[in-house]
């Protein structure tokens, strides 16, 4: 019982804080976030990724789609050649080797950062928008609307998310955008539930009732009074969701259902060369490592955000 009340109190405080003096709350959050080493590491990796994604065109030594046959003396799937590590200076330097189509793997990895960030943000934005609308409607209106929405969410949740995403992509046809849609659809229920829960928790609170009594418009109340409450859990869920989305999109691409060639996307690069793992391990190792680091960054950041935004956990996670 005591847990429940304290949670309500927190929610109330958050709500007031956001609407009255939201700046200070964000400041608190940032300060808390910066105290956490793991979150800092996450932000560090993320900053690097964003930098690479923006500047890929300039920092990459080659174009990601440039075929080097006849341009340089290299062969398909050639192992990495790094001058610093003793690779003869007369050979062209390719620090992550050459891929199956005789392209520079390092340049493709750099350009892949764009794809992954895009995938992460696009799917989660899509899922949050739809999930928020559904969750808010269900929570606010209640009754059969709520029932129908939540049962549909249950059906979606009843499938292992990757399998459902595979099935949806097969219906839509393979491709990066369709893969994004599929993963977005699959992750809607998580957000819908979060929003619904926080709508339910504040629906009956005094200031909402007051707005209602003053004859406020339903949607006005929903968007001005109720939804800001859901922001905190949404940010946490969203950040962690980006990690999952990138992982799932990579899995779809690995299976050949996501990004299509010649796009430099880590999952499809890995999937395309998976049969060469024993003869050219560098073609599998680096894209996988890149995926892992990106996902790690979002996971660390998400955990840090959760701890920073949830005062209850403050003393535990220390």
């Amino acid at each position: 019982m005591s847990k429940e009340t304290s949670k309500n109190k927190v929610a109330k405080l958050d709500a007031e804080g956001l609407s009255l003096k939201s700046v200070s709350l964000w400041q608190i959050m940032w300060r808390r976030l910066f105290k956490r080493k793991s979150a800092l590491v996450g932000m560090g990796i993320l900053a690097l990724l964003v930098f690479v994604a923006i500047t890929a065109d300039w920092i990459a030594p080659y174009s990601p789609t440039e075929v080097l046959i006849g341009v340089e003396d290299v062969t398909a799937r050639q192992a990495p050649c790094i001058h610093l590590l003793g690779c003869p200076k007369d050979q062209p330097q390719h620090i992550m080797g050459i891929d199956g189509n005789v392209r520079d793997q390092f340049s493709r990895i750099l350009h892949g950062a764009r794809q992954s960030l895009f995938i992460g943000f696009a799917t989660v934005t899509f899922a949050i928008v739809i999930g928020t609308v559904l969750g808010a409607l269900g929570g606010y209106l209640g009754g059969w609307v709520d029932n129908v929405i939540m049962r549909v969410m249950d059906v979606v949740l009843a499938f292992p998310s990757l399998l459902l995403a595979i099935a949806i992509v097969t219906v839509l046809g393979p491709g990066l955008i369709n893969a994004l849609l599929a993963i977005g659809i699959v992750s809607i229920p998580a957000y819908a539930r979060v929003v619904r829960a926080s709508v339910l928790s504040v629906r009956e609170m005094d200031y909402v009732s007051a707005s209602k009594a003053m004859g406020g418009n339903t949607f006005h109340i929903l968007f001005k009074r109720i939804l800001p409450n859901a922001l905190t859990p949404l940010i946490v869920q969203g950040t962690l969701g980006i990690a999952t989305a990138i992982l799932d999109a990579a899995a779809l691409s690995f299976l050949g259902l996501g990004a299509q060639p010649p796009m430099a996307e880590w999952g499809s690069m890995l999937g395309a060369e998976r049969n060469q793992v024993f003869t050219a391990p560098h073609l599998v190792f680096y894209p996988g490592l890149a995926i892992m680091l990106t996902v790690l960054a979002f996971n660390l950041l998400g955990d840090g955000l959760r701890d920073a935004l949830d005062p209850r956990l403050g003393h535990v996670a220390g």
Partner: protein
Amino acid sequence: MKRTSFMLVSLLVLASLLLASCGPKTEEATEAATQAATEAATEAATEAAAFEPMVVEAPNCDYGGEFLRIEAVDEYTVRFTLCYPDPAFPSKIAFSAFAIQPREWLEANGGSGELLTHPIGTGPYMVQEWVRGEQLVFTRFDGYWGEKALTPTLVFRWSTESAQRVLELQAGTVDGIDNPGPDDFAVIRSDPNLQLINRPALNIFYIGMNNTYPPFDDERVRQAIAMSIDRQRIVDQFYPEGSEVATHFTPCSIPNGCVGLPWYDFDPEAGRALLAEAGYPNGFDTKLFYRDVVRGYLPQVSNVAQDIQAQLLANLNIRAEIVVMESGAFLDAADSGQLDGLHLLGWGADYPDQTNFLDYHFGAGASAQFGEKFPDIVDNLRAAAQLASDEERAPYYEAANNAIRQHVPMIPVAHGGSAVAFKASVQGAHSSPLGNENFSVMQIPGQDVFVWMQNAEPISLFCADETDGESLRACEQVTESLLAFEIGGTAVKPSLAERCEANEDLTVWTCYLRQGVQFHDGSLLDANDVVASYVLQWDAASPLHVGNTGAFTYFSSLFGAFLNADQ
């Protein structure tokens, strides 16, 4: 409360139904098996006394198939009467989809059921156990009429990943593997414990175009592309050793395969000029369709597609967007002429004859894959197919090949070589251009089990109704056809039939069966078994025309329509 209990009951019902459905219905199958065994035993006794020859015939040839009449003339003679001359008939009946099984066994199983997992053949091995998903185990058939198998037990395993197959071979857990990845060729060659055997390339990989969609309706555009693809580079980079740049559509090892002028030389400048002349000096936008399916003719699908895409852009400024389609949808769209760009496809030989290559793609009966047909190709092919000898047919095929080079319905790129790899200690190791390696002649001295690892699990072992090489190879160890291909080659040799003879105009073929050939169930081969095995496939109205899917795809693609197909 009432509603609650109703719901509860319905839930229970649902649950019990779920459980009930999990029990496989195997009773019928076992029953059928015992029945067949007893019948087989009695057959030997009664057969000699009274042989009632089976005859099935079509009312006329209007139904559109090749057979007019299939009959048992006597106990050891079968006669096929055809609707039109067919010089390739021996090659066709040597194909393993037309293997002979005992008539009683086929009837006892209603043309399906146990047949799918437990074929009864005359081959050197018989099926011992098929652990689905895991392995397929064969044992030596001691009553085999020919050279008995050298190794008592043969095991088939499978893995779709070539890397895994190679690793299993290196680890010594398997004795031979199919299709090592192109990059693994060197690894295997350099390993003294292993041997690599190339499989001759009896296939073609091509870039297809449909002449009903602009700009491919302009012959100059097609020719320009034909000149501007560096096919040598594709073969060098993405094909294993043993592959060749295609000079013609049909591989040279097939009689009359590469008569006529060889393909255009790589000349992007001439190509650009021709494209400009056709009105596209700055190239155009199009699509490049393919399916992500590895075949012998296309071992690295996505790499080749990306390279062609890059070449089109670099040499002709043609901007091709890659569109990967699901295999079935892709073939369907290609056949119905819906692909409005370039498409990547190939063909593997079913039987070593020009008709299997050229007629199927460019003949009168070909699909709309390349759009409108070219009369000069069609006419020459029709003329050639009526003639019996390769010498007589040569000039027509030369003309057809030249016409193909002129019109460029497609660009032949490569004959893809593949390979098999074995432990160095394997004796009798060989590869077959048709993919039907014969394991009865292989052995590692002193070893009782021989393990073979291929790309995939067989779908069923009733190969009359299967098309994939993985199923066919398993069947070929167990069942045999009237004729056979020589081990590791394409020449037709006697098998269950000691010889097959044609009349003068090649419309009546008579096959004389080997006597005393024993099936795995102990019964003896006679002419009725042959007729029954063929009629099961030919007659769509037969109660035995069931199979796995009921499609009998190879029969219809080699012999045309089924009898009674409309019923």
